[in-house]
């Protein structure tokens, strides 16, 4: 019988999540720097707004991808525990 958060999370899961989160944070920082560069470098308003929209889209995508990966990690742990647990 599976119940409780221990079925989803253990120390390896947390470590994997931290690794993913650190990677995502650096990637987000890169995209924020790009946004800053766009803000200062592009004078044309329309073009700047378009580029900023694209950048925002990438940031949202990155966040969603991090959520998806975290979900995958937790789900894999759950499946592993489920296989190890006798019916």
């Amino acid at each position: 019988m599976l119940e409780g958060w221990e079925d989803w999370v253990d120390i390896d899961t947390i470590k994997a999540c931290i690794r993913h989160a650190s990677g995502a944070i650096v990637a987000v920082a890169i995209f924020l720097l790009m946004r800053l560069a766009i803000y200062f470098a592009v004078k044309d308003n329309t073009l700047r707004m378009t580029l900023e929209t694209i950048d925002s889209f990438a940031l949202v995508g990155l966040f969603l991808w991090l959520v998806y990966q975290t979900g995958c990690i937790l789900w894999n742990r759950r499946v592993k525990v489920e296989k190890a647990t006798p019916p």
Partner: protein
Amino acid sequence: MKKRHRPKLFEASQYIILYAAVGVAFIPAGVLYAIGVSAGWNKVLTSVVCLGLGFLTAHLVWTRLQASLAPIRSPEVPLMQDNKETAILTTLKIHEKIWILKTNSASPVAGHVGYTKPFVAAPILISTAPILDTANPQHR
């Protein structure tokens, strides 16, 4: 002792590369979204469709890049140099065998191991067995 920090650095850089690539993978969908919004399409529908498209692209990029970055993991081998056999295999640049040793000893969750096919190791080991025998007198 210094070498013990390298694998973590490799792993961290690997995830940075992967996530940066995912961000880049969302750019084409972002361009499509920007075009759609400027053309006056439904914002919610366009964003959902474009995010789905971006997710698909990101998945392809992630899978492909993860597979191609996998060989970079081999530098973590020196961690196991106390193992004599592993040290010999490291000298001969056989990473697959070491990878199997590593997966047997380490947690399967840690670090997304699983890109090197275990069956790759067998033929390599068979082919290098004579080399081991001739190179090292102790093996005779």
